């Protein structure tokens, strides 16, 4: 998926003051490109992810997916876009606590109307090395295992864009490295476009391009 952001601006009210987070932010991503966004805390990385996923509306600017403008999409249109074309990976995994690993991974397919998504989810978990943890609940999994389940869930429905927020931020170095290997293997194997927000130089170095978010805009590093 080609991603095009033009002149995005976003401010929030903090008390009576307006806090300008993004200001004229622009970005072009080609299909299959993996871009890292780095920046200090509070620089607006999470806001950028929220805008890309349609959770927040920009005050100004354009968002285009494959040349299709998403600026005036309604909430159900954004929801449909997320369902079909977006995958999310969070720093704290955020698995649904009452679903097993395989059920968590199968969930996006289920929401897309698949009758029996679990074989596919099992296959995905096997690829992620979790074939023996299929029926474990999140609290029975380690951090690394939980993040691998989260990656499986983000990729199972072959989304055209993957957004990841500090995907190894909660993991120790060794586990983080393993998870990262899996994530990049999957992304590159499927030619998926991805935007990864990170503080980690190691993660950033593995991406095709690194941008830094500073003063509300993205700058090449």
């Amino acid at each position, binding site marked *: 998926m080609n991603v095009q952001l033009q002149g995005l601006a976003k401010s929030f009210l903090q008390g009576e003051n307006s806090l300008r987070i993004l200001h004229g932010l622009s970005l072009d991503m080609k299909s299959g490109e993996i871009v890292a966004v780095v920046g200090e805390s509070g620089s607006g990385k999470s806001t950028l992810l929220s805008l890309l996923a349609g959770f927040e509306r920009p005050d100004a600017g354009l968002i285009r997916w494959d040349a299709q403008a998403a600026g005036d999409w309604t909430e159900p249109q*954004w929801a449909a876009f997320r369902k079909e074309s977006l995958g999310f990976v969070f720093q704290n995994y955020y698995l649904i606590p*009452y679903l097993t690993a395989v*059920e968590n991974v199968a969930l996006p397919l289920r929401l897309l109307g698949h009758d029996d998504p679990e074989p596919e989810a099992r296959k995905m978990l096997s690829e992620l090395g979790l074939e023996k943890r299929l029926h474990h609940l999140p609290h029975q999994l380690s951090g690394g295992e939980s993040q691998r389940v989260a990656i499986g869930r983000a990729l199972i429905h072959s989304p055209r864009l993957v957004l990841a927020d500090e995907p190894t931020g909660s993991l120790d170095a060794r586990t983080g490295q393993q998870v990262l290997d899996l994530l990049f293997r999957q992304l590159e194997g499927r030619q998926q476009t991805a935007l990864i927000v990170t503080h980690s130089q190691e993660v950033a170095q593995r991406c095709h391009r690194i941008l830094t978010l500073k003063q509300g805009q993205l700058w090449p590093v």
Partner: protein
Amino acid sequence: MASLNLILASLRRQKTLYGIWVLSLCLAVTGLVIIDVYRQSLAGMIREQGRKILTGDLSMSARRQLNETERRTFTAAVPQPAQMAESYDMMAMISTDKESRLAMVRFITDAYPLVGQIQLSERAGDVQGADLLSGDAIKMWIAADLVPLMNLKMGDQVKLGAITAEVAGIIQKDSSQTLRFGGLAPRVYLHRTQLEPARLIQFGSTFTNSLYALTPDVDNEALRRSLDTQLTDPGLEITSPRDMERGALRVLTRVLDYLGLIGLVTLSLGWIGVYYLGRRWLTLERTPSALLKCIGLSSLELQNLLLLKLSVILCAGVILGGALSWVGAHAVLPMFKSSLPPEFVLLWSWKSTALLLVIGPLAGLLLLYAPLRAVAFEAPLSLLNANPARVELSWQRLTALAGSVVFLFVALTFLQARSWNVTGVFLAALVGCVIAIAGVAYLFLRAVRSARRQRQGWRWHLASAQWLGRPGTALLLVIVSALAGLLAQMVPHLERTIVGEIRPPEQGSRPALFLFDVQEEQTEPLTAMLRADGAEISQSSPFIRSRLLQVNGAPFERAQTGEWSTREEENEARFRNRGVNLTYRAHLSPSEKIVAGVDYESMPEDQVSVEKDYAERLGFKVGDRLLFDVQGVEIEAAIGSLREVNWDSFEPNFFIQFKSGMLGEAPKTWIMTVKRHASLSAPQMQRLITGKFPNVSSINVQEALDNLTDIVTKLSGGLKVASRLAMALGVFVFLMILLFQLLSSRQDWVQLRVQGLTPGQIWQLQLLIYGGLALLGTLLGTLLAGAANWGLAHFAFRTHPQFDVPAMLVILSITWVLAWIGLTWMSLRQARDIARSLRSLNSV
């Protein structure tokens, strides 16, 4: 399908939360639904039995002889040929050589009962009035209750007025009798032909004359309305089977009203629990909700998913609640069996289902819709990042939430009480109690804050930090325990007060007998006879029957029966439709007190004093002019004053009384009270009086009081069950809030263990934090129960309050022990959980 899978997985794997939630809702609805099952079953039975209770399709009755015009109008209105019957009812003394007793005597014609059955123990099949005529002897059927009371058997001779009748049947079934509260005057049947020979109806005697008709295939309601417009005398009552529902159930429906109000407090405690658990559930749903939105659910789809899940939980709760109510209704049936007709069976009505759906799913959805919507429409990343203990609500949503719940609660209260007055008083009392409890809890927290500035031990330091850190939870725990304590303790106090009023320890002031239907010429010989035997008349009052014709020049007409929507309207109609009995006395009796208008001593003779509550019901005020028809003579009088009357004094008192003079010459009977006697018992005095004056009826006051005490005990039994259910639910909700408090603050307790506290010290701390709040709440509840008893005794019953201290101590002990056991159990479980956490580095 995906939604259903998600819901089922969640229900399967979060059993504790959902189990407690379902149980909480189930217990919340049970009390009110049990009461509704009884209400609907009784109404259903009366609907089924209405014709049998009435003994016909339509009746006309009056507390006097029906006149020819009335008989003709009634007969003309009924499609001919119609089967008809007639009865005369009166209280009268029946006696044998050894016993004398007040009975409700019914003289019946051949065809009585037109509908329903009278069955005798010695005879197969149903009997009718005509069966009383077989053979030469005068025959009488007696209620089975009379057999042990008067040691009677078949063939015994019983004196009634001027006749002696033979016991020809003992009644096993009488479908005209509904509820059996009190056996003061068991029923006796004789044939109509014995009415005149018995000479019980003399001038001014109290009796009811009824005419019955069988009118199959006719709209009796329309017929009743038509007769209502033709016959406007307020003293005349036209009754259809539908009216029986209201009339026959008056006593029990009043009790059910009050039980229903207790059920409402239980329900509100349950709602607190349901709301608390719902908020806890929504906190847990934040992460899954955020993920589902990230995966592609729109806010609306997520809201619908959460609503569906909530509905499943609420429906499970009410299904279980319905089942428990049904079992509970059967379980408490033996308590009331003796007061209910034998035909009574418990029925499940669609109205109970509707009530369940309203107080369960609908109320739950109203309570939780606003916070649920807040979660569904919150941005996913904010759901993930925000403090998970909170779901912020806008004031508009809070107003909508509070408004809808308050509206529902007010509507439910009105449906239970059927009275705006009771609804208002109940809601004001409940809100007042909650404000008082919250006020004290607030002062407690302020005192804690002040005390915290001084140096204290670590337990106090941590406990006070917990109270001040979560003031909302502290307040909720105090309110729940105080309301449960209040309800549980108020009922025993009230029972003690009411029974104390009925049976004071000093009964010397109460009369032994209450005599009525004493003819004018009998007063002197009766007084002389009693005096000769050492007994003494304590008070005698003239009793003058009259009809109220006009109020301030406007005709005083009968209120339509059967169309009441509130208890106030029903009272107004009942009081309007009964005849007006007058008296006159020169001075007030000790049980009377003027509360408005002129002083009684200086009241002119053309004025009357009216009992305050009676005046309120009929809308009379001082200065209104009333026109009476006293035996054909019109007398007009203005209301000079309003009086308060202590009806429990058992002195002869009247709603309307003249000073003297104007009624001095009016035809009258007398009501008298006979003082207690050192050597003559009340039954002995009754036999003495009945022997010489067979038309005079007497009530053994002690027996009547015993009877009343029995009724109060039976009724308060139901109230006690309801209040104990409230207490149990209060303890349950308290422990449930506690459980989730402990769970949500698990990391705090882990930290305290890491800092070096032992499990025993943590238990002590938890006991101090939560036990302290329970102690404060239950003590507040105890004080409020005492205050409520005092207030009700002074303002509603106008008597001295009495307190059931042993019951209070027992209830307090049980509550504390239950809370202690529950808290200790949870603390032990948590200690094991914390120990596991400490062993696992991941969890700390």
